[in-house]
């Protein structure tokens, strides 16, 4: 059977940060306490000239730099998953594909499924590669996510993304199996034309995040005949630091297993970038033979679970050709709320 998996990856997070106490200072609430409750000490903020196109491109260029033997013309598909595409109509994916010189003999589309559009893209690429329709596919999860001013989401909604080259040659991390669990669960949504999403508060927990992640994860482990102890690392969707820690415990994973891929405490929730970035941080450290368990979650709602094995190819892989997640997160620049409002385009300017 054809071995399909990750051939290369790249990650990018903008350098700007804001702390929950600074957000709380504006709205008259205990921001520090809020951050502690969410297990978020700071979140990333895009630069004034950054958006999902530029974030996805930076991640994709890092991905290509690490796989110099791959001709971009052999990429048959580019999928960008996000809920903050700069255009409502005009694909992000075409711009990114042009920037990595994969055009024109390829297909491209933008995807949206709250926080899990990036992993849905990985599944779609696996299908294309497996069916022989594409030699390589690119799946990117990136966001400059929105949280209404003063809302709990404002303390977590952040910016970043990661890109994955999926193929069947020189695979550094084989995807042994992927399974999903999907239902119609309205826990979080944003209507067309609305600037900010709404959510069901506590409803986003048990019937949404926890039900979907545990269902997909259990189903996959059952199909693979594995148990949590069989995996060295685990990455779960990270809307905050609290949920993935709790869901890991519910499934029987230890805090040590989720440590390498848990980024939300220092960058916030990068939405579609969340699990892709967490997996990138794991792959930065992974060694041949490591087994990695991954489960994303997207509100609305669904989870994609992946069983991954790092291969010997990782020893030849040119990880050094692009910065690791840890390197990307070095030297942050802290913003006050006024600067943050400017960066997020919340200030109404004259025409």
């Amino acid at each position, binding site marked *: 059977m054809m071995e399909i998996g990750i051939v290369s990856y790249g990650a990018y997070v903008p*350098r700007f940060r804001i702390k929950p106490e600074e957000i709380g200072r504006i709205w008259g609430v205990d921001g520090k306490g809020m951050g502690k409750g969410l297990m978020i000490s700071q979140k990333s903020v895009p630069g004034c*000239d950054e*958006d999902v*196109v530029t974030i996805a491109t930076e991640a994709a260029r890092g991905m290509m730099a690490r796989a110099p033997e791959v001709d971009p013309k052999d990429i048959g598909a580019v999928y960008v998953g996000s809920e903050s595409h700069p255009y409502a109509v005009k694909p992000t994916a075409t711009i990114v594909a042009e920037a990595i010189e994969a055009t024109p003999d390829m297909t491209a589309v933008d995807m949206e499924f709250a926080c899990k559009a990036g992993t849905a893209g990985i599944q779609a690429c696996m299908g294309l590669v497996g069916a022989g329709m594409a030699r390589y596919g690119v799946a990117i999860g990136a966001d400059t996510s929105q949280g209404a001013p003063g809302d709990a989401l404002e303390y977590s909604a952040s910016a970043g993304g990661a890109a994955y080259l999926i193929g069947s040659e020189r695979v550094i991390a084989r995807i042994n199996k992927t399974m999903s669990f999907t239902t119609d669960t309205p826990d979080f949504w944003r209507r067309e034309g609305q600037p900010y999403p709404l959510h069901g508060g506590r409803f986003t927990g048990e019937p949404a995040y926890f039900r979907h992640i545990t269902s997909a994860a259990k189903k996959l482990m059952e199909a693979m005949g594995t148990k949590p102890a069989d995996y060295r690392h685990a990455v779960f969707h990270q809307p905050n630091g609290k949920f993935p820690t709790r869901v890991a415990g519910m499934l029987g994973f230890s805090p040590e297993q989720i440590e390498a891929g848990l980024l939300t405490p220092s960058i916030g929730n990068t939405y579609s970038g969340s699990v892709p970035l967490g997996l990138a941080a794991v792959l930065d450290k992974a060694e041949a033979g490591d087994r990695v368990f991954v489960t994303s979650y997207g509100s609305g709602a669904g989870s994609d679970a992946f069983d991954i094995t790092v291969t010997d190819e990782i020893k030849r892989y040119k990880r050094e050709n692009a910065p690791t997640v840890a390197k990307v997160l070095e030297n942050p620049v802290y913003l006050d709320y006024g600067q943050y409002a400017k960066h997020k385009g919340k200030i109404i300017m004259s025409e």
Partner: protein
Amino acid sequence: MSSVAREWREIPGRYNLEGSKCGCCGQVYFPRRDFCPKCRRDGIGKVSPYKIDRSGEIFSFSIVYESPECNSFLKPYAVALVKTGDGALVAGQLVDVDLEKISIGMPVRAVLRKLDADGASGVIHYGFKFAPAL
């Protein structure tokens, strides 16, 4: 509002620094040009598209305090002449850099950023800016 056709024509240069190279004398040009002023008649038909190196070093720079409208959110900011690995001199904005730490000879690389947008409804212009090398 700028022309979308012009925007589209400039994509290879703006995204991937596609310039041109004279097949007669080897001179690299950016932005692209169809005529080599050194070889003149001898170079006609020999100038072809050429992707210049996306990395280079700062040849000269300046800090901008009064910006055009498109960069009003970014001021003060720096612009630089960057000497790329293949010797071309490219003018561009510097990003993700502390203004007081910029120096001549500093290694930089081209990144894709938003340059401007035609209002809230028009096309968004993307193109290269330079960030410190990794």
